[in-house]
């Protein structure tokens, strides 16, 4: 088969696109978890703040914090981990604010997703890509 100059370019572009795409190993799991959390309700962008570093040197402890005004629960997921669930925060009547910080493990460069159940019963979403230099799943 002859490979023309044009084909070579197309192949190259395809290869770049493949390598740039973040890990989507458990994308289906994420959708399923969101559905379980929201009961199938629509999720709008915004309404929740997710703070995570842009680049994490060590995937074993990545500091994150989430907050959403008046939210009763916040679900945190890592789309590229072997299992996407990270934590679910439920805020009780004596919570001073609907915010929390913790440290999580990330297997590699991927999106961290936070879904909040807001005061009016709707759902908000925030997403942030974290670049991980050393993955945190051992093995």
């Amino acid at each position, binding site marked *: 088969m002859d490979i023309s100059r044009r084909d070579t370019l197309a192949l190259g572009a395809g290869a770049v696109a493949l390598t740039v795409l973040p890990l989507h190993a458990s994308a289906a799991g994420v959708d399923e978890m969101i559905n379980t959390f929201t009961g199938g309700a629509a999720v709008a962008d915004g309404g929740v703040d997710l703070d995570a570093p842009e680049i994490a040197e060590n995937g074993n402890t990545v500091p994150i914090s989430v907050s959403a005004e008046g939210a009763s629960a916040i679900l945190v997921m890592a789309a590229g981990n072997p299992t996407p669930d990270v934590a679910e925060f439920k805020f009780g009547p004596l*919570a001073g604010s609907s915010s929390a910080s913790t440290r999580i493990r990330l297997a590699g460069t991927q999106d961290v997703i936070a879904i909040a159940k807001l005061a009016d019963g709707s759902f908000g979403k925030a997403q942030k890509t974290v670049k991980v230099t050393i993955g945190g799943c051992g093995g």
Partner: protein
Amino acid sequence: MADGVKPRVKAPKKADAGEVVTIKCLISHKMESGQRKDKDGNVIPRSIINRFTCDFGDQNVVDVTLAPAISTNPYFEFEAKIPESGDLKFTWYDDDGSVYEDSKTVKVG
């Protein structure tokens, strides 16, 4: 009970009525994810703390469900509203059924 599990909590001793205070807590626990393998290639079974709660009196402050993706020595920082003098109670639930507890007294006034 897993070895060397020690909860540590930082909470203020005094607060004004209705004040919102920041609480930091950490528990030493290896949080074995169930993904790692030992040198013979056998999967090390999962052993994590799967739930953490903080209550003031009989009212809940925060209730967290933990997955293996929470780091070793799980750390949480959150805010609580202190309505009156009383005890903040912290509870960690281990996969093996153990329950670790700690409490801090907060005085109002």
